[in-house]
Structures are given as C-alpha cells and as structure tokens.
C-alpha cells in the first residue's frame, strides 16, 4: 500500500460510533492526483476494493474481521461476481485502519459485529467490483479502438466478439487504473449470480489444518518479549501496591509494571515465565465500592425493577394494556431471568504492541480495526500518522473483540510504552479472560398476558428489568434517546431490524434499566438471547393456558408478518408438527426477527430420569433476504446451536465479593460433539430491499425451542437460565 500522509490526532474522532457517516462508495478517492495507487506488491489498484497483478491474479481488499463466520469469503464472492474475475486466482489483501484513515476512510466501516459484515457493505463492495470491471473493459476497448459495449468480460478475460480479440485483466490493469471512475455503476440481478450465492469453500482453510494460520497468540517478532497481566478482580477496583522485588529474580523476568490504575503485568522472555512470576507477585488491591456485591444483590435490584413505576417504552400498540389485562377472561403471568455469560473465545484476549516515541503499532485480533486504532491512538499519545493496527485471524470473536473501554488493546499499549522499542506480546490467561469479560448482560422479565374466552391473546405486557450494554459502551446513543437503550428491546422492538413480528391488540414492552457494576458487552446475538427466551417461552405458556396448539397460536398473531410465518411454517412442516412425534420424543418451536433476518427453529428432544435431556434434532429456517454463501450459512446456523445451547444448559457467570466466580471451562462448560443435535438448515431467502444478517439471528431460537419441548416432555416450565441450576443435564 502507499505511504500514509500526515494526519493529526485531533482530526480523527476517537469514538468509532461517531465514525458512522460517509461510507466509501467503493470508488477510488484521488487525494494523490493522477498517479496510480498501488498495492503492497506494486500492482495497480483499479478501485479501492480491487487490485490486479500482471499475472492476472485479483487482489481483493477486505477490512471486516474474519473470526470464522466466513465474511471475508462472502465479501470476496460479491466483489468477484461483479468483477467477473477468475475465482481460482483471488487473493485477499487487508488494508490497515491507518491506511484507510489516511485516505479519508476509503474502505468505510471496519467494525464487524451485529451480523453486519456482509449486509451493510454489500452494495458498496459490489459497486467497487463492478466499477473495476467497467474500467478494465474500457481500457481494453480503448486499446482496440472499439466501444466497450462491444466487449464482454468473463473469468478475468475480456473479449471483443466482432474481431475475436482477447486480453486479460492483468494486461490492461495499468491502463485501467489511470481511467476515471464511472459514475453510474449498475449491479447484476442476484438471480444471475455465478460466484456469489454459491456454496463455495472458504478461502482460508488450508492454513487452518496444518498449524500455519497465524493468530494473535502466535505472533513472533525479533526481540519480542511476552507479558502476562492481571487486572483487579473486582470491577472498578485499583492497584494499591505491589512488590516487584519479590519476583524480579525469577526465571526470565525482565520487568514488572503497573498497567493503568487497575492492573499489573510481568514482562518476561516467554509468556510461561511471565505468567509463573505474575502468580507469585504480591499485589494489594483497593477493591473499591463494589467489593461486597454478589449475584443475589444484583438479582434483588433487578427484581425491584419488574414493578417499578418508571420504565422506558420500547413497543406499544392498541389501548391500555392494564385495562385489557384486567378485563381478560384469563390472565397469565410469569417471571423469567437470564444470567451474565462470558464469550469464552477459544483464543484468549491478546495483543502485541511495539511503542517508540515516534511510532506505535498493534498486531492482534480485533473485530473493529478502527476502534482498536482509536484506542491505540489514545493510549500511545501519538498522532494518527504514527499509529497503526494490523489485524490477524481471530480465534473466535462473538462480540468480545469489539471495542470496549479499558480493554486488552489499551492494556497492551500501556505495557509496551514502559519498554520502548521492544515488541511485547501480552496474553491473557484463560482465568484472566473469565475474570475480565464484557459479559452478556443480566435481565429479568415479567410477562403478563390476557386471553379472551376463546383463548386468543388480547393484551401483553412485557417488562424487562436489567442491564443496558449501550449505557456502558455507547452512552451517547442512550443520551440521544433520553436514557432509553433501544438495543435492549432487540426482537421485541417497535420498528427496525429487530422488530417484534407478532401483532398483539394491546401491547406494552418496557424496560426498567438497572446497571450493576459488571461490565456488559455484545455477546453473539446480544439482547435477542434473553428476549427470545422470554417472549417465545411465554407464547407457549399463553397457548397452553388458552388450550391452543403453540404453532396455531403463533400463526394467528403473525398475519402481518408473512416472512416470519414463512420460516415458522417451514420448520413446522419439516419437523412433522402435524403428525405425532415418535414415542418418548417431544417437540418445541420458536421464531424471531433479528438483524433483519427471520429465523425459526423446531426441535425434538427426549428426557430421561426427568433431568437428562437429549436433543435429537433441530430444524432451523432462515430468511436473510439474500444468501451469499449457502454452505457457510449452514455452518453458522449449526454453530449457533452449539453456542446457544451451551449457554442454555451450562453457562452462568456468578458474582461474589464483586468479582466473577467462574475461572475456566471446568466451571464454565461448553457443549461437546456427543451433545450436538443433528441440525437441518432450511435456507429460504425471499429477496427484497433489505439484506439480513447470518452470524447471530439463529442463536436466539435455540434456547426457547428446547425450553418449550422440555415443558411438553415434563410438564415443568423452566424460567431461568442456565438449566444446570435446575439439575438438568444435556446428554
């Protein structure tokens, strides 16, 4: 890539949220005059998304993070589709946030969360591919002195039919890179796609089967040292003192440093030596005001919110819900709760930083390159042209590697600053990773529903009480909504990508915000996880109270949501809902709209000895509007059940003395292959103007479908997660 022009720190806004405007159109911005912009190897850049080597290899640029979800392969498919290039000769190149900033954010958004990687950038990356094709064809037409409309492009070859002349992208790339960008860039009809929309293999598998894929954890640099870090186990606590002399003579130890207000780190030759010494380091903490807080205290605060006067309204329809409930022939009420959960990415948090007074660079896994860039900028004290971030393959992300205040990137910079010139790889132990997550927030929910004499739903009040992620992470969004966190209503909201699919005559969904001291974060699916457990379990409770079939009960409420009805009907049909289940097998289902996709699941389970649950089969339907790679979507859907059912059955982070009690996988379990149900995916994209997400939506229907089947099997309605607290096992 090209050199980076000077950039002052002031001109780069720190908050990644504030960077939202002005997405790149995929067109080359020419701050460099007429000169050709070149890729790292000197190949000419046609548009910011495409550079072509003379040997006809296509370099496709990607700035979203790859954490296993397949986004990079999907984005490359979209660009290659419009470019009409040879898919077998595609390579990926990763511009850095520093390069993007220097080119007025030529590559747009880096942040990879909210299942947005493909859906939000699809249009501008496709235009980047299409514009490049138009320019390459124009360059060939100019050479042949014919009209570009007489030429066709396919597989990186341009043909002039009339004369039979052919050339390659590689041969005309230099000339194409000097042309003006076309202004009108039409896109293909997805129905004609040949590369996009196909179940192509991932581009990055070969290195993942022979140990050569480099994750942040694996970085090696000349002269590099390693750091192990420990932050105050009580959130909000600080370091009072530590006795470095006690460990300074230990094997490999180079330096013992304080990290910000709240952490200590040992820098050593190897990470193992650093960690071993850190465990011996005497540290006195000032544990602060939260030192005595427990899960029971937090639950008490949330419980009070269930009946509190003040609450933010997220969805309202019809008339007075309280009156409708009072006048109902039958009233149903239930209280649910959802715990703190850790993402537990397989690769613990880490970052490698080299700091000098003149330059600071970070190499490491992040879901938000620009967010990490802003954090490095802030912590390093250097201007933007002296800072950069190099993303690597993430060993899992799930929302944990988004940008959070005072997190691992900042720590790594603060450590490296204390040993200028030496690259330092900071790695969290699994125990540190468990102690300092950005946890799935806690939420309780009181649901009150009214039925008429025929068992039809006449009114529903859903009161949420619990923690807001945005209040902690993006307070400016909450401020703009006068204290409301719109995201807390995901799946049950009044409008938008997470809107409630049901039409309820009298409806009130409101949220009493209660924010404990435990730092919350975006956990794959975010707030749809608990909201789906609440509403979709309660739908079954209402159906049962009204003597109705849960499928029929839902169908009646989905008259205004044909796509939701579509996925629900699809899973019902495939699971065989209208026919009796095999002996001893029980079924449950759930549906939701999230991240602009419609999802539904139906499962078959059996229960032995009243508590041993076997999930035999799950049918999952997804309508994301468009499907860029059906094979990768299937994998995301199947994987969602591993993540979602692990959370349902096993996972809870409890708080004692202000800190998280769980320390590793032995007390924070995750599903194994023996417990994996057979997942049958129905992919049913129905097109339309909006592209839906894939990585997250399905996860939310896993838990309620199984909870509903469990209630059918045992007659017991479980209203709190995880099931291990009820003595229930997954076998």
């Amino acid at each position, binding site marked *: 890539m090209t050199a980076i022009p000077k950039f002052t720190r002031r001109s780069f806004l720190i908050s990644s949220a504030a960077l939202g405007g002005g997405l790149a159109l995929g067109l080359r911005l020419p701050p460099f005059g007429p000169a050709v912009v070149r890729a790292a190897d000197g190949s000419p850049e046609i548009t910011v998304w495409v550079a072509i080597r003379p040997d006809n290899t296509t370099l496709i640029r990607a700035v979203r993070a790859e954490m296993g979800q*397949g986004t990079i392969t999907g984005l490359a498919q979209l660009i290659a589709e419009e470019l009409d290039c040879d898919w077998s000769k595609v390579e990926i190149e990763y511009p850095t946030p520093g390069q993007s900033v220097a080119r007025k954010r030529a590559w747009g958004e880096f942040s990879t969360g909210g299942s947005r990687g493909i859906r939000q950038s699809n249009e501008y990356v496709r235009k980047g591919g299409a514009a490049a094709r138009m320019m390459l064809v124009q360059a060939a037409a100019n050479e042949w002195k014919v009209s570009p409309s007489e030429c066709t492009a396919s597989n990186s070859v341009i043909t002039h039919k009339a004369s039979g002349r052919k050339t390659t992208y590689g041969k005309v790339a230099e000339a194409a890179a000097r042309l003006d960008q076309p202004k009108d860039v039409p896109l293909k009809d997805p129905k004609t796609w040949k590369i996009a929309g196909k179940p192509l293999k991932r581009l990055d598998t070969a290195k993942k089967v022979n140990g050569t894929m480099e994750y942040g954890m694996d970085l*090696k640099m000349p002269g590099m040292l390693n750091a192990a870090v420990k932050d105050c186990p009580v959130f909000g606590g600080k370091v009072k003192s530590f006795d470095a002399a006690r460990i300074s003579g230990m094997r490999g130890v180079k330096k013992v440093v304080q990290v910000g207000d709240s952490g200590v780190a040992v820098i050593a030759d190897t990470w*193992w030596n650093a960690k071993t010494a850190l465990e011996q380091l005497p540290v006195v903490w000032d544990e602060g005001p939260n030192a005595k807080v427990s899960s029971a205290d937090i639950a008490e605060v949330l419980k009070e919110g269930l009946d509190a006067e003040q609450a933010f309204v997220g969805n309202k329809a019809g008339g007075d819900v309280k009156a409708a409930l009072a006048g109902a022939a039958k009233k149903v009420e239930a209280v649910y709760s959802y715990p703190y959960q850790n993402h537990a990415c397989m690769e613990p948090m880490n970052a490698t930083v080299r700091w000098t007074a003149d330059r600071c660079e970070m190499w490491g896994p992040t879901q938000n390159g620009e967010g990490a860039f802003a954090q490095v900028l802030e912590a390093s004290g250097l201007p933007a042209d002296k800072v950069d971030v190099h993303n690597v393959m993430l060993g899992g992300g799930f929302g944990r590697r988004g940008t959070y205040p005072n997190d691992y990137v900042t720590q790594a910079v603060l450590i490296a600053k204390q040993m200028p010139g030496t690259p330092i790889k900071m790695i969290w132990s*699994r125990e540190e990773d468990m102690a300092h997550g950005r946890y799935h927030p806690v939420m309780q929910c009181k649901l009150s529903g009214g039925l008429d004499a025929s068992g039809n739903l006449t009114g529903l009040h859903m009161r949420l009480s619990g923690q807001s992620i945005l209040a902690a992470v993006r307070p400016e969004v909450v401020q703009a909504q006068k204290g409301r966190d719109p995201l807390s209503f995901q799946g049950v909201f009044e409008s938008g990508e997470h809107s409630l699919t049901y039409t309820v005559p009298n409806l009130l969904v409101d949220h009493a915000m209660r924010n404990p001291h435990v730092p919350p974060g975006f956990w794959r699916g975010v707030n749809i996880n608990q909201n789906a457990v609440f509403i979709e379990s309660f739908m079954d409770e209402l159906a049962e109270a009204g003597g109705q079939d849960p499928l029929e009960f839902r169908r009646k409420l989905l008259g205004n949501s044909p796509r939701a009805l579509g996925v629900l009907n699809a899973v019902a049909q495939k699971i065989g809902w209208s026919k009796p289940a095999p002996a001893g097998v029980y079924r449950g289902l759930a549906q939701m709209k999230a991240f602009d996709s419609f999802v539904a699941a139906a499962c078959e389970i059996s229960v032995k000895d009243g508590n041993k649950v076997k999930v035999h089969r799950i049918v999952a339907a997804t309508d994301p509007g468009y499907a860029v790679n059906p094979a990768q979507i299937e994998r995301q859907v199947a994987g969602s059940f*591993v993540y979602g059912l*692990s959370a349902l059955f096993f996972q809870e982070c409890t708080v004692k003395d202000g800190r998280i009690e769980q320390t*590793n996988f032995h007390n924070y379990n*995750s599903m194994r292959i023996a417990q994996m149900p057979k997942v049958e995916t129905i992919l049913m994209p129905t097109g339309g103007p909006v592209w839906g997400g894939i990585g997250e939506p399905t996860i939310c229907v896993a838990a309620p479908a199984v909870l509903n089947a469990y209630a059918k099997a045992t007659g017991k309605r479980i209203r709190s997660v995880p099931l291990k607290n009820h003595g229930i096992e997954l076998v």
Partner: protein
Amino acid sequence: MRLTINGKSHEVDVDPTTPLLWVIREQVGLTGTKYGCGIAQCGACTVHVNGIPMRSCSVPVSAASDAKITTIEGLASGKVLHKVQKAWIDHDVPQCGYCQSGMIMAVAALLKAKPKPTDADIDASITNICRCGTFQQVREAIHAAAKAA
C-alpha cells in the same frame, strides 16, 4: 533437555515443570498447537506423545523428554496431507480454526486406534471444545476420512 518433535531433535533450556505446550510454542517455535485453557479441558493443545493423544498444557516437559512427539505441523508426510487434514479441507470444517489443530490431532489418534469409528466411538473419544460449533462438519469429516483409509 532434548525433545524429539516431528522427527527433529531440539535442545531446550527450560524449567522441567514447564508444560510441554509452552515449550513447543515458545522454545521450539511451533505455534500450531494452541493454548485454550491450560487445565486439559478444551483439547486445543492436543499433540501425540508416542502416538497417544495428550493435552500438552498439562504434561510437564520433563515427562516427554524421551518421547516421540508429533504436533499438527508434523502430521502430514512431507507435502502429502494426512487423511484427516484432507477430509477437513474437503468438508470445509474449520470456522475460526483455533481449536482445529487439537481437534485434528485427536481425530487422527482416534482413527489410528479405530479405523472405522461409529458415532458412539466419536462421542466417547472426541471431547475437544469448539466454540464456533463445527461439530456437525467434524463428524461428517471423520466418517469421510475413515472411508478414505
């Protein structure tokens, strides 16, 4: 201390209680073997010690000094991939891929002990954690690798 890894002898100067995992990663420099938990729960660090799959985070290096150690980097025969690696590519198994070195080493050992494993055999012997949730593809690929033998 001398270690034999992937047929090559390495002299390492470490505390004998250091876990084999960290000697492989930090002294020998083979980073395909991953750290996930450090307490033999997740299996990301699985290597073969004298042909037996072991969770190297919980094996002191001193216990492996006379052994023949194979890591993910040594599973292929030169440029010819092991049948499990081939099946993994054919079935596009990895998602983030971080746990897959350990998963592949565990499966390679299973197929050596039981060339045609049943689903029950797989359930009993493959206990690695994968947070992305690749299990459905893992199972398919194990059966495919068994057939390829």
